């Protein structure tokens, strides 16, 4: 089975080969077949390649390694390895409650219509601030974390629905009147300021 990555590379190579042929022998375009070749090589294939490449870049921008490649995010990456189940991101990451290769995106996407586009737009803003502006110190969310992002997975799950606390506060949690994170229940999140004082989980260590 050909991977999307390989398919894109094959298309890029095909496109480059045809363009090179036209650059070296532009007289080929003097007949009808040559004109069709030029249309494919200089218009159709480059647009297809750019479209597929953009799609690939968009998918890659969801990856944990993409987010953590910025220096400022390094402690947040480390917080995923804290050896303490009270750390919400660490517990989710280490127990694969979220896809580990898309950990940041899974929890920080808005689960609404066009939420993915909004997340990408915020990502572009992060990149702008990182390279051309002054990043916040310490960094924080633009808006308070919405319960909707937690409930996207937890709502309807047995462990959530059978909890007496969750049942009692169900409506307040769903309407975001009471925050899952800041109301005192699950308030240990990345907590990067205290990372030096906690033990980190070493998956390879025995």
């Amino acid at each position: 089975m050909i991977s999307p990555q390989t398919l894109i590379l094959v298309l890029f190579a095909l496109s480059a080969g045809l363009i090179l042929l036209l650059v070296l022998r532009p007289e080929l375009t003097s007949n009808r077949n040559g004109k069709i070749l030029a249309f494919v090589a200089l218009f159709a294939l480059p647009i297809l390649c750019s479209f597929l490449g953009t799609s690939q870049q968009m998918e890659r921008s969801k990856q944990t390694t993409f987010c953590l490649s910025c220096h400022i995010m390094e402690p947040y990456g480390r917080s995923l390895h804290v050896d303490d189940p009270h750390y919400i991101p660490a517990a989710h990451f280490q127990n694969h409650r979220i896809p580990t290769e898309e950990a940041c995106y899974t929890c920080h996407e808005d689960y609404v219509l066009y939420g993915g586009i909004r997340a990408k737009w915020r990502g572009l803003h992060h990149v702008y601030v990182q390279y051309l502006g002054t990043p916040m110190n310490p960094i924080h969310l633009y808006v308070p974390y919405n319960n909707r992002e937690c409930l996207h997975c937890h709502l309807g799950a047995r462990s959530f629905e059978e909890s007496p606390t969750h049942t009692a506060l169900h409506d307040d949690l769903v309407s975001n009147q009471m925050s899952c994170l800041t109301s005192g229940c699950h308030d240990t999140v990345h907590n990067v300021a205290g990372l030096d004082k906690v033990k980190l989980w070493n998956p390879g260590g025995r």
Partner: protein
Amino acid sequence: MTVHNPIERRLRLAGVFVLLGLLVEVAALRWVQPVAFLVFAFVGIPIASLGIVIYLYSLVSLRR
């Protein structure tokens, strides 16, 4: 290799730009980093687009 026909010259120029743009795009696909995304979106695509525009212009100018 000498090209005298102006349309062929434009096609060659378009080919060079599209090729250059595609090379930048494929190079940017090798890294999973925000910089690679920026290079892809703001360098590769504009260069390839410029080549496509030159190609389309060469088609329009063909009628003269």
